[in-house]
């Protein structure tokens, strides 16, 4: 029995009118940040290059005529040769350098991704719990972070890798398990200020459990600093992985990573320069772009610095 008074028709009309009218659109903070980021030319170009590197590293191997562990007995230690399809030359074992560089880039990217996820997960949860509970729990948890900071980082990774074997998964986890400290500190600091806000009080008043408050209300509000710091962590992890591989403690043959390739190329760079050039250029480009993206994100998400 639609409205005896005709109130419903009036309201429906009004609602329809509103729906058709262009309501002024609000801009969210994320949109603001994206707009600022898109104005930063260095960051935009860097994002493009990184996406390109990722695509080429994962799709490229299907189009390269040689496999990364395939030996071409007819061309060993040969410079780039386009007729045979060795666009980057071959190494001492006659393996195609382009295929190896692609595989190495893939491995370095995977290491970086997994280790970053591990370190962000541990760091965010640890920092948020420590900051939210405060008091003695906080003091104790942060004291532990201080202790971990005092451990010489690279020695610790070397110990982990040596003790637990040359398993790539452990390599990822080991690197990630050490990179979370700074993340935990940043997150704790942010949490300390967020937990005093009214919406947390409201959540607590409505009976939410501490864990739910942390996961639902605090963690989503940390995304800005977490994204910035995670972006800046990726290059550090790639360097750490390359360094371990350089020492011979990382990824094992026939698999390879950018660090392994550079460590193989460096001693022979005088006679076989193409063995160092390919991986070195990819590594430096990748690190440079990631650093620019990190800086750009920081400027975009944290406008008070500008």
């Amino acid at each position, binding site marked *: 029995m639609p409205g005896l008074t005709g109130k419903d028709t009036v309201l429906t009309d009004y609602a329809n009118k509103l729906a058709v009218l262009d309501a002024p659109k609000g801009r969210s903070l994320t949109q603001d940040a994206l707009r600022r980021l898109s104005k930063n030319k260095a960051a935009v170009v860097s994002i493009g290059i990184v996406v390109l590197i990722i695509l080429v590293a994962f799709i490229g191997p299907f189009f390269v005529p040689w496999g990364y562990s395939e030996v071409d007995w007819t061309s060993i230690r040969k410079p780039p040769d386009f007729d045979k399809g060795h666009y980057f030359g071959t190494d001492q074992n006659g393996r195609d350098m382009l295929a190896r560089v692609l595989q190495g880039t893939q491995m370095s990217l995977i290491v970086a991704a997994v280790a970053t996820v591990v370190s962000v997960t541990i760091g965010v949860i640890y920092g948020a719990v420590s900051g939210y509970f405060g008091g003695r729990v906080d003091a104790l948890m942060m004291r532990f972070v201080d202790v971990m900071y005092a451990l*010489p980082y*690279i020695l610790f990774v070397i110990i982990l890798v040596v*003790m637990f074997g040359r398993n790539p998964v452990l390599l990822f986890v080991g690197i990630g398990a050490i990179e979370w400290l700074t993340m935990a500190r940043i997150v704790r600091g942010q949490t300390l200020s967020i937990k005093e806000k009214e919406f947390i009080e409201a959540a607590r008043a409505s009976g939410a459990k501490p864990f739910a408050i942390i996961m639902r209300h605090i963690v989503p509000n940390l995304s800005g600093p977490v994204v910035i710091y995670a972006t800046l962590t990726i290059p550090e992890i790639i360097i750490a992985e390359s360094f371990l591989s350089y020492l011979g403690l990382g990824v094992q043959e026939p698999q390879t990573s950018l660090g392994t390739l550079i460590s193989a190329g460096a001693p022979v760079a005088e006679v076989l320069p193409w063995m160092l050039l390919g991986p070195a250029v990819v590594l430096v480009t990748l690190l440079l772009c990631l650093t620019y993206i990190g800086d750009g994100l920081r400027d975009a998400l944290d406008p008070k610095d500008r």
Partner: protein
Amino acid sequence: MLAYAFRRVLSAIPIALIAVTVCFFILRLAPGGPFDGERALPPTVLANLRAHYSLDQPLIMQYFIYVGRLLQGDLGPSMVIDGFRVADLIRIGFPFTLTLALYAFVIATAIGIVAGMLSAVYQNKWPDYVMVLVVMIGVVIPNFLNAALLQLVFGVHLGWLPAGGWVSGSVAHLVLPVTVLAWPHAARISRLMRGSMIEVLGSNYVRTARAKGLGERLVLARHAIKPALLPVVSYLGPGLSYLLTGSLAVEQIFGLPGIGKYFVTAALNRDYGIVLGTTILYMFIILALNLIVDLVYAWLDPKVRYR
């Protein structure tokens, strides 16, 4: 100030103890041991070896024995090389590692501070752009790649400097390693210095100093530098510990006789004694550095003292 220093020293002691404990148990709980050779040892020999290094005791007893020795200043024996102690390793390798790291530290800090300051004063003019570029190279190129490139250019092609190795007392052999080690450190410091200097130069008291007619040099020297140094000072401690651990890599690359080479070999051989001793030594150094940094910080910024 004295009371603050005292409190700070006291609070470092439990951290050191916990860190020793963490190191000890991580190493011991990991699978594999120093006597897992290619060929299995006869059981009696193995038992004797284990008894000699107290490895047959319960883990918790081993821990107390170790800490007891540590308190007497004994970092323990090597478990692979007979008669070789961590103390010997430190006597042989540490002076060199320390020298290398200190050279890099002093040079990099000086260059970093000056470069950061110039960069801030000439913000967005060509000296700034040049500086930012050099800094970016330092941040982005990992030390082993940088080392390889410098060796190739200056060691092999130009032949100006030895590409590696060590002749006692030769400065030329130190130039490339110190450069490789110092570059990223200088880069980070100049980044910090540039950022904080720009902030300070925009602050009210600098405007006041300029308004009362001080020359630009005096403004910088008397008002801007000290507060701008704060973030740099707080980085120096971690920075020096990065240099000390980073020198492990540089020693390895240039074939220099520091601790680095021994450490990697010891880790590969599961030589608990050497690995644990070296790690604990580095940890004490890092803790001591952090302590010094905190004290310097308190001296520069009175707010910290009264927390």
